[in-house]
């Protein structure tokens, strides 16, 4: 048995950055490390919730037969739209394996053949114009298998374009003069014979 001594020496952010899911029919099996292997030509589907709404919970429960893990990944999706409802309709009550990337960058895998997570939603319009109109979604399931780190490369669905970066443009000033305005996702190249450190303050 190892010691249980794991001090945190750097940042530790709460939350889930994004997740991926694969429906049971697209899954070929597990490799020797226990990582999910998809069937040829299949890819992981990307999932993102409203910023900072996704959270993962893994509760270990001791039963007569051994340890069971109750896994829940939940989050929110804002605004009813027919296209969104169409995707959710295909997912409801289906069984999935999921990969969860936390805000510290670690990727964890849950679900495997015979022990899948089920998807469900809870839609609500709210009553006031200021209330949220959207969905709460969750993947839930119980597993006998220990959760594992995912060590393979995640192949995203190539048919889904990457989301456009959002945010305000950044203005670059040099000695008080505006020299460039960089749009979200843009690059600003500085060529100099010196090694300098730049800090963008706003």
């Amino acid at each position, binding site marked *: 048995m190892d010691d*249980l001594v794991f001090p945190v020496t750097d940042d530790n952010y709460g939350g889930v950055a994004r997740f991926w899911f694969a429906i049971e029919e697209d899954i070929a099996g597990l490799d020797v490390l226990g990582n999910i292997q998809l069937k040829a030509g299949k890819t992981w589907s990307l999932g993102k919730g409203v910023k900072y709404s996704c959270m993962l919970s893994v509760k270990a429960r001791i039963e007569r037969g051994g340890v069971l893990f109750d896994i829940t990944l939940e989050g929110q999706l804002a605004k009813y739209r027919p296209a969104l409802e169409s995707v959710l309709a295909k997912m409801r009550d289906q069984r999935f394996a999921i990969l969860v990337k936390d805000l510290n960058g670690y990727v964890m895998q849950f679900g495997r053949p015979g022990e899948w997570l089920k998807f469900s939603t809870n839609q609500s319009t709210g009553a006031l114009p200021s209330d949220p109109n959207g969905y709460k979604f969750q993947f839930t399931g119980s597993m006998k298998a220990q959760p594992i780190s995912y060590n393979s490369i995640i192949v995203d669905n190539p048919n889904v374009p990457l989301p456009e970066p959002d945010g305000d443009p950044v203005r670059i000033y040099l000695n008080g003069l505006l020299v460039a305005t960089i749009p979200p996702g843009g690059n600003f190249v500085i060529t100099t014979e010196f090694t300098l450190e730049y800090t963008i303050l706003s």
Partner: protein
Amino acid sequence: MNLTFPVSGDNYGGVDRFWFAHEDDIAGVDAASQIVLKEGKFWNLGRATKYTLDFSNPQTTRRGGIIFNSTLKGVVKKYRPELEDVLSKMRGERFALVFKDLNGYLIQVGRPGELLTFTTDQATGGLPSENNQYQFSFGGQTNKNTVVSRILLPELVA
């Protein structure tokens, strides 16, 4: 018998650290009820996020007699694969514990046949400011109070 124990010095709440021994590594108990480990085995050290370790041993009276629910719980921050590896070996296993409270007292919990089972509850939180952590607990229910003072041993001085 009198119940008069006025506190004359400091009395800090909380647990400083703990040690745990797997049931397979335990040989038995000696005449002073101290857990004795098998040859070549040792106590593993456990530490948690500062001020999250908490021991409780509530007593309930049932028809059959008195039941003790011993629990040592704490928090370990930040999912890391190497941490998960250690926790996965411990989940569902049974242990004897020795913990040191913040007043410096060593207390032993559990004995052969009446050990504590380890479990965890992982959560990422939703916001970056929320906790990404495990809550862990060693818990067990016994019909005898297995909590005894632990005599200091060299291996527990750390």
